Structures are given as structure tokens and as C-alpha cells.
């Protein structure tokens, strides 16, 4: 039965029994006094009056005390909030921003760092890594990722294939040990449509080990990985949807990866996006297809499955039930150590062996985590601070309001309201306030998630992070802000209701808000902390904005204006060797002839795009340096008009030209740094040297180019060698080239004609990354830009919030002191003095806040130092600027109340009470 109905019934019977009891007692007394039973009973009823009417009176009271009271509270609360529209708007907005921003950031963090893979028992999954103090010498070559840990070790998740086979076949710890490798973006064509998509190589037990069930057809299994592997592919669910319209008949069709035919055998389930956050594959193909799909460096293709010194395959495992991570690690680490030891050829190699270690793999592989965890942590801290500022502000607003409502509360108490009733009323108001804040916060959270995903995706074309609104985070932030509202809404209420009513009633509005001698109240503390937090943000914004400005003003050494760049990779369409170079040369000529193109060239490295090619340098007369750490250089293979087009000045000699082709003596143009480092105090022209990956003999320096930025805006410029791509001196398969077109007008307007040229010259050759050079340089400083933008936004927000808080506190203080100020003016105080009196208080608070803020900044700066460029954390100019901005805002916020104080008319003020 409904609880309320039951209580109602219970109360009805109680009331009936109570009145019956009274009537009976009265009748008994009358009988004792000598009346007859009948007389007594009648008299008792008569004396009581109308029983029904009395019951009605009482019932009416019940209704008023329960449900109606809530409605009353809500109505009253709503009226109060509407009456103070500014307060309500500010508080709700502050709440919404705090809740929304926190939820959005936390949701993104969750997607990248915490959320488990959508597989069976993700807790059992582990990732295999190795670590070593220096680069292991037993590793001849490595394809994949390598990280420098904070403790100085090098770690990587990539292993030689024979190690994988050994561990897979000899262990007691794993139910399954499976391998995969990200091949990156390949050219995929299906149904006569070519596009670029990520391809993941997987071992036969990859899907079964993860415990994944196909959405259609079957997944890659062990049979696919026998011999040289069957040419089959599993589609990702989203690719199946976009390219095959989720047609079940897709299974059995043929698609082409880099022009090789593969048969579609199945579709992965919709919730599975691979094991790397933000790097969702489009296709999964059997591991044994690696030789035909991956780029071949040297003779890798012949030996990749037997060479114990070639590290490339990533391994994940599922622990047997009951086996701990530590036990599994002890077992496989020992076995891998034996393996590495056996692959070592001498004592030097044996001295630095890679040590295997296991990492929990429930949330997948962590490349994205490494890339974004620190920036996200900085963001998270910023947003948490914003929440703190928001809460402080709400607390402040509520405190000021509660103080101004002391009289109201006292009046209501004296009119018979109970303490409980008053608290309920104030609680209702707090919740009423929090509700719109929460709803608005939800909207901000959703918008914020979109914005952040867009921001993180920024540079990369195939970023596919699935961010969902994190409800626990929303609940948490909502709870925190609600709790703030309740604590600060109720605490003063409690105090107010406990107070002695009479003095509060007598209290005139004009008496001083705080007694002299106890000048530090909660409000003051809150204002000071808000100013301190705001200063942190303003400082942060100033640092990041200056960093960005410094990066943008870096001299790059070439002209980035009106430059259109794009990548063409004809090797993916099957072009090889001389055929490939000839195709690029043909394209270059066609581009040069396009209307609106002033000059066109090509290079294998796009300058200042974050990528680089490095190799060792052998100088004549210097003994060959064995191993790593010897002389090295960065290099770029360029087209004949590269220096002209990029407008890199030649300091000495000549540029790479159209005569530097296959068969001609090998010409090199080096930058000034190269010349100064390797041929100091000599004329570099005519000097000869060799490059580590060249088997074509000596290079002769024909020119020296002015230093230009090579791979990034930050850091030092490396020595650079420019050679002609037409001389075929680098022993590796030719791959994609970047074309650079100097436009007469808007570079992006050339995109259509560029596409036409490519499809005319070589159909099926993919054209990617079309953008202006300035855009691609801009993406390399995306993180700095993000910080500068966000921190500026946050600083503005924090400043506004703090100013609102300060304005509220000062306006309130002034209104409480109207009487005092009136007296002062009446006694002859000049108005500027009054103005100064109020401002002085504000400045004192600000000084305290700024002091605290600077102290906190001192501690926080080491955390962001690595994000700064060209600014020192203790830069006095930046600090002075930030402090100035803050002081300006504070004085602006306090000026209106101060001016109002100065305008007080003594007569009105004194007559007020």
C-alpha cells in the first residue's frame, strides 16, 4: 500500500481514538459527580462541541504540514530567487560551468585512460613491454614506438616475432598470447572507391584471445595464418556500414589493399574499435600478410618472421584464471631474457638486454595515453580549479544572502515557524538553485565533449576516439556543487535559526556587517582564495599566450605564405623504382604548368610537420663509428626546384638542380649547421662524405643553404643534407612524396585542379593531406594553441566569477554600512575619502589573494614548464602583466559599490532606520 495513504489512515484512526478517549473520560467524571450514564455521555458530547468540525480543523493542519508545505516552500523559494535575478543567474551559471567543464574533461579522460575494452573479462588482459637502461644493442632495427620514461629507461611494446612464438608456445601463465601490428594508413579500394584507412595485422588467436564475436561472417583465425597467410580481411563495423551499407553480402566480396586483392570474410562487432584508443582500424588482416603490405626496409621482408634482432610485433595476453600479473611476469620475463641473451653476439650487447615487463591491458594499448595524459592532466587540474572557484563563489553569494536574510528568518521564526521548517525552506531554495545549474551543466558537458574531441583530433586525419558522456562524473560534479550549495546555504541558516530572535529583530540593517576587531570573516577568506585562483589562471593564460606568440614568431627560414602542400603515394598503387620517380617528375611538371601556380616542387619530408629522416654521417679520414652515437644528420630528398620554391636562400655554391639525376655525380646541399659542424674552418664546397643508409658512394657538397627549420618549431635546428630524389641513393623503397605549390592567390583554391592532375596522371593513386603549409605548421603547435585558448577562456571565466563574487561581497558590505557611512559624511568626511575607504579594503583583500596566488604559481610552474617555449616561469614581465590585469578587474568590480558608498546621502542614510 502507498506509504502516504497508510499514514493518513493511521492518523485518522488515531484521531478518532483520541477523541473517543476524551469523551469517555469526561463522561466518567460526570458520572462520578452523580450524573446518570446517559446524561453524562450526552453532556460530554455537548461540552466537546462539534466533533466533526474539530476533526476538520485538525485535518486541515495535516495537509498544510506535509505536501502543501513543499509546494509552499518551492513557491516561496522561486519567488525569492526571482527577486534576486542577478544572484540566481550568476550562481546558476557558475554551477553550470563548473559541472559542465568538469564532466566533459573527465569523460574524455575516461575514454582515453580508464575505460575498459569491450571484451570478455578485460581485467585478465595484459600488455607485454620491454625496458632497458639504454637502447638495447641486440635490437638491429625496430618498427614501432619507443618511449623515454621519466626515470630515464627506454621502453617499447614491440618484440621480434621469434620471441612471440617462443613465449606463446612455452608458458603456463597465459590462456592465450596474441599478436598484432598497426600498419598505419594504407590505400583501400572497395566497390571501385579508393580511400585511405588504417589496417591492423592480427595473429590467428587475436580475436579468440580477446573473446570477440563477429557481427557477420567469421573473424581471422589460426588457419588464415598458415604459410604466407590467406589474403582475407575482417571489416570494422563502421567501414561495413559506410562502404557496404551493412550488406551481409559484403562477406565474400573482394577488396584491394595497396592493389592486392583480399576476400572479406567477416565483420567485427560494433563496439570493438581495436585495442588502441583513438586508432580504430578499418580492416583486420592475418599477420602473415605483413611482407606484402608493410614497407620493406633492407631485407626485412625475407627475415621478419625469423630474425631475433628485428623488433616489430606487439603482444597482448590473457592471463589464466587465478594467475597474478606478478607471477606471469616472473615466468615470461625469465624466458624472454634467455631469448635476448641468445640473440646477443658479444659482451657489449649482453650488457644492455631488454627486460620484459607486463602492464595491465584492460583498457588497451596506451600510445594515446602517453601522448595526451599530461596535457589532459593539466586541463583536469585547471577545470578542477574552476570548480573550486565556482564553489567558492556560490558559497560567497549564499553567505552574503543568508546574512541579509537574518531579519527575514527572525521574523518568520517569531511568527511561529519551526527551525526544521526554516531549514527545509532554505534547503529547497538551494536545490532550486542547483537544478537549472545542473541542466545547463549537462548541455555544457555535451558541447564540451564535442569540442574536446575535435580539439584532440586536430592534427590527425583518422582520430576516432569514442567519447561518451560520463554519467558518474556528471553525478560527482553535480553532487559537489549541490553539497556546496547545501552546506553554505544551510550553515548560515542553522546559525540564524539558533539565534536569539529578539536582537535579530531589533537589528537595524545599517549596523556593521562584522564587528570591529574581528575583521576576517568567511566571506573575506573566500574572496581572497578566489582572487588567488584567478591569478593562477591569468598567469597560466599569459604564459601560454606568450608561448604561442613566441612559437608563431619563430623564424622558419623559408616562406610559408601561399604554399599548398599535399601527399601523393604512388607506391600504394603499385608503382616501383624508376617508374615511381618518373611519375612524380611528370606530376611535378604538370603542377608547374597549372594556372595560378608560381612554382612547384616536391620532397619526401614536409618541413616543420613533426616528421624527420635521420641517418649517420661518415666523414673522410674519420674512422667509422661502430653503433649509435656517432656523427649524424637529418636529410630530405627534394625535387630540382625545391630551394627556389621554398625560398630558402643559398649561401654558397648552387642549389639542387635538374642536372642532379640518376647517373650524375651525387650532389648534396647542406645547411650552415652541417657545414659548421663537420667541415669547420674550411670551404665546404667540394667536400665529400657518406650517409649511413647510402650504398651509392660519396656525396659531394655543391652548396650551402641558409638554416631553415626542419621538423619542428621548437628545439635546435639539426644539421640537414638535401639531395635529389632522382638520384636513387637511399636504399629503401621509394614511398610517398609531399608536393609544395607556391600559389599566386588562395592556395586552397588550387585543390580541385590538383586532384584532376593526379587522377589524370595516375588513377588509383591516393592524394591526401591537402592543406596550406601554414596550416600544417599550425597543427604541430596544436597543443600549445589549445592550452593558450583554453587557459585564456578559463582565466576570463575565473576572473568573471571572482569579480562577481567580489562585487557581491562589497555591494553587500556597503549596504550594511550605509548608516555608518552616512554618519561619517555627516561628520564631514569627504567623499573621495569614503571611496578610498571601501577600495582600500578591496585592495587589501586583493593583495592577500595575489600573494597567495603567486606562491601557488611558484609551485605549479614546474608542472607546466615543459609546455612553455621562450618564456621563463619566473618571467617578471609576464607576472607583472597578469597581476596588473587582475588588479584592474578587481578594482573595476569594486568601483561600483565604492562609488555608491561615496554617493550616500547622509540624511537618507540616517533616516533609513
Amino acid at each position, binding site marked *: 500500500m502507498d506509504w502516504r495513504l497508510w499514514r493518513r489512515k493511521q492518523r485518522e484512526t*488515531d484521531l478518532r*481514538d*483520541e*477523541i473517543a*478517549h*476524551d469523551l*469517555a*473520560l*469526561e463522561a466518567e467524571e460526570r458520572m462520578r459527580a452523580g450524573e446518570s450514564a446517559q446524561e453524562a455521555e450526552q453532556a460530554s458530547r455537548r*461540552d*466537546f*462541541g*462539534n466533533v466533526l*468540525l*474539530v476533526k476538520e*480543523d*485538525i485535518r486541515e*493542519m*495535516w495537509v498544510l*504540514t506535509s505536501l502543501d508545505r513543499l509546494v509552499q516552500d518551492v513557491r516561496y523559494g522561486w519567488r525569492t530567487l526571482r527577486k534576486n535575478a542577478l544572484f540566481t543567474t550568476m550562481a546558476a551559471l557558475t554551477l553550470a560551468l563548473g559541472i559542465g567543464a568538469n564532466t566533459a574533461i573527465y569523460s574524455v579522460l575516461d575514454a582515453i585512460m580508464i575505460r575498459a575494452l569491450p571484451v570478455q573479462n578485460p581485467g585478465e588482459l595484459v600488455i607485454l613491454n620491454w625496458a632497458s637502461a639504454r637502447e638495447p644493442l641486440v635490437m638491429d632495427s625496430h618498427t614501432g614506438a619507443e618511449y623515454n620514461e621519466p626515470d630515464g629507461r627506454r621502453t617499447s611494446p614491440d618484440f621480434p616475432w621469434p620471441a612471440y612464438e617462443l613465449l606463446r608456445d612455452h608458458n603456463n601463465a597465459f590462456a592465450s598470447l596474441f599478436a598484432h601490428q598497426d600498419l598505419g594508413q594504407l590505400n583501400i579500394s572497395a566497390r571501385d572507391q579508393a580511400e585511405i584507412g588504417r589496417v591492423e595485422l592480427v595473429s590467428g588467436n587475436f580475436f579468440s584471445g580477446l573473446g570477440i564475436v563477429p557481427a557477420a561472417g567469421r573473424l581471422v583465425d589460426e588457419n588464415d595464418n598458415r604459410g604466407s597467410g590467406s589474403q582475407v580481411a575482417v571489416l570494422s563495423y563502421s567501414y561495413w556500414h559506410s562502404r557496404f551499407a551493412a550488406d551481409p553480402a559484403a562477406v565474400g566480396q573482394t577488396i584491394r589493399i595497396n592493389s592486392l586483392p583480399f576476400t572479406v570474410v567477416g565483420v567485427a562487432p560494433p563496439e570493438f574499435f581495436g585495442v588502441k584508443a583513438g586508432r580504430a582500424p578499418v580492416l583486420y588482416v592475418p599477420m602473415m600478410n605483413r611482407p606484402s603490405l608493410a614497407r620493406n626496409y633492407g631485407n626485412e621482408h625475407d627475415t621478419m618472421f625469423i630474425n631475433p634482432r628485428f623488433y616489430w610485433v606487439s603482444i597482448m595476453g590473457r592471463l589464466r584464471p587465478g594467475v597474478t600479473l606478478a607471477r606471469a611476469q616472473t615466468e615470461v620475463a625469465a624466458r624472454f631474457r634467455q631469448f635476448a641473451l641468445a640473440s646477443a653476439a658479444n659482451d657489449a650487447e649482453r650488457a644492455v638486454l631488454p627486460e620484459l615487463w607486463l602492464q595491465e591491458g584492460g583498457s588497451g594499448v596506451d600510445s594515446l595515453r602517453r601522448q595526451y595524459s599530461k596535457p589532459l592532466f593539466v586541463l583536469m587540474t585547471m577545470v578542477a580549479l574552476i570548480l573550486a572557484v565556482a564553489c567558492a563563489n556560490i558559497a560567497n553569494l549564499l553567505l552574503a544572502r543568508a546574512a541579509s536574510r537574518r531579519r527575514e528568518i527572525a521574523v518568520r521564526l517569531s511568527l*511561529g515557524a*519551526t*527551525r*526544521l*521548517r526554516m531549514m527545509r525552506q532554505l534547503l529547497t531554495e538551494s536545490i532550486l538553485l542547483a537544478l537549472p545549474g545542473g541542466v545547463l551543466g549537462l548541455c555544457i558537458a555535451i558541447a564540451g565533449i564535442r569540442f574536446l574531441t575535435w580539439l584532440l583530433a586536430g592534427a590527425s586525419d583518422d582520430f576516432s576516439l569514442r567519447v561518451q558522456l560520463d554519467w558518474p562524473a556528471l553525478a560527482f560534479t553535480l553532487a559537489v556543487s549541490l553539497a556546496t550549495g547545501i552546506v553554505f546555504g544551510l550553515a548560515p541558516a542553522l546559525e540564524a535559526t539558533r539565534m536569539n*530572535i529578539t536582537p535579530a529583530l531589533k537589528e537595524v540593517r545599517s549596523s556593521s556587517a562584522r564587528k570591529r576587531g574581528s575583521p576576517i570573516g568567511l566571506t573575506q577568506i573566500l574572496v581572497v582564495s578566489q582572487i588567488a585562483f584567478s591569478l593562477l589562471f591569468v598567469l597560466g593564460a599569459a604564459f601560454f599566450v606568450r608561448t604561442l606568440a613566441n612559437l608563431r614568431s619563430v623564424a622558419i627560414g623559408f616562406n610559408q605564405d601561399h604554399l599548398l602542400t599535399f601527399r601523393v603515394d604512388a607506391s600504394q598503387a603499385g608503382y616501383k623504382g624508376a617508374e615511381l620517380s618518373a611519375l612524380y617528375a611528370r606530376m611535378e611538371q604538370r603542377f608547374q604548368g597549372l594556372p595560378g601556380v608560381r612554382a612547384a616542387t616536391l620532397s619526401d619530408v614536409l618541413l616543420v610537420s613533426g616528421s624527420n629522416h635521420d641517418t649517420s654521417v661518415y666523414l673522410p679520414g674519420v674512422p667509422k663509428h661502430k653503433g649509435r652515437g656517432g656523427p649524424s644528420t637529418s636529410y630530405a630528398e627534394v625535387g630540382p626546384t625545391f630551394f627556389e620554391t621554398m625560398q630558402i636562400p643559398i649561401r654558397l655554391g648552387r642549389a639542387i638542380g635538374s642536372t642532379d639525376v640518376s647517373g650524375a655525380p651525387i650532389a648534396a646541399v647542406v645547411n650552415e649547421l652541417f657545414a659548421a659542424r663537420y667541415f669547420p674552418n674550411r670551404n665546404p664546397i667540394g667536400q665529400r662524405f657518406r650517409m649511413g643508409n647510402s650504398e651509392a658512394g660519396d656525396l659531394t657538397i655543391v652548396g650551402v643553404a641558409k638554416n631553415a627549420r626542419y621538423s619542428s618549431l621548437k628545439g635546435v635546428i639539426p644539421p640537414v643534407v638535401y639531395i635529389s630524389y632522382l638520384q636513387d641513393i637511399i636504399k629503401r623503397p621509394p614511398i610517398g612524396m609531399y608536393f609544395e605549390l607556391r600559389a599566386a592567390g588562395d592556395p586552397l583554391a588550387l585543390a580541385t585542379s590538383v586532384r584532376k592532375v593526379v587522377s589524370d596522371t595516375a588513377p588509383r593513386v591516393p592524394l591526401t593531406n591537402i592543406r596550406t603549409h601554414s596550416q600544417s605548421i599550425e597543427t604541430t603547435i596544436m597543443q600549445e594553441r589549445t592550452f593558450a585558448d583554453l587557459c585564456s577562456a578559463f582565466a576570463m571565466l575565473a576572473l568573471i566569477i571572482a569579480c562577481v563574487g567580489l562585487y557581491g561581497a562589497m555591494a553587500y558590505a556597503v549596504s550594511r554600512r550605509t548608516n555608518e557611512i552616512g554618519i561619517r559624511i555627516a561628520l564631514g568626511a569627504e567623499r573621495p575619502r569614503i571611496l578610498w575607504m571601501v577600495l582600500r579594503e578591496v585592495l587589501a583583500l586583493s593583495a592577500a589573494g595575489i600573494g597567495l596566488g603567486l606562491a601557488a604559481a611558484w609551485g605549479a610552474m614546474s608542472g607546466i614548464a615543459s609546455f612553455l617555449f621562450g618564456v621563463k616561469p619566473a618571467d617578471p614581465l609576464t607576472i607583472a602583466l597578469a597581476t596588473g590585469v587582475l588588479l584592474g578587474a578587481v578594482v573595476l568590480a569594486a568601483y561600483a559599490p565604492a562609488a555608491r558608498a561615496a554617493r550616500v546621502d547622509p540624511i537618507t542614510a540616517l533616516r533609513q532606520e
Partner: protein
Amino acid sequence: MPARLVNHESADENRIELLQGTLDMLILRTLQFGPQHGHGVGQAIRQSSDDLLKIERGSLYPALHRLEARGLISSEWKSSDLNRRAKYYRLTPDGRKQFAAEQSKWNLLVRAIRRVMRPA
């Protein structure tokens, strides 16, 4: 709702209206001596006023329920002396405080009125 007092010495129509809240104060005073049921409260007020005041039960019960709703008194069902179940009211801590406040207010009022009436 105004509580009414009946002055038994004079005629029934000689009724005076109490100031608002006075009945509440009398009820709180009575319950200071311990828990009592509604009828008992009425009797106690009559007896302690030497039968000068008789509380109308039609006013008494709404007053009791109002005080309970305000949290100044609480109630429970217990067996009475005559082994009959009755609803007993008792003072809550809030009620005690409220009574103290009302008593001092009352004393002030009485003193003030007495001073005003003295010349007569």
C-alpha cells in the same frame, strides 16, 4: 483560531479572548510536569487555575496537533492508569526552549500591563 477561556465565577457569556499563543503557552507549561493525554491537559489547566479557566476541548485538540506539527511536543500511545490506551503528549527540547521564551515574553507583558493599569 482564538482560544477561549470560560470564567466560571461569572456568567457563561462573560468570555475573554486570550492573546494568540497563550493557550499554547499554557499547554507547554502543563506538559512541563510530565507526559499527559489531551483530557488530562485540559483538567490540569482547570485545576491549577482553581477552576477559573476551563479550556474548550474543541480548541484544545487542534492546539495540541498544531504544537505537535511544529515539533514542540511529541506524542505516543500508552496505557493509562485505568488500563486504557491513550495518546500521551510530551515536551520536545524545542518545546522547552519555546516555553522558556514565551514565559519571559509573558512576564514582560504582565509587568507592562500592570504598570499601565496601576493609576486606575
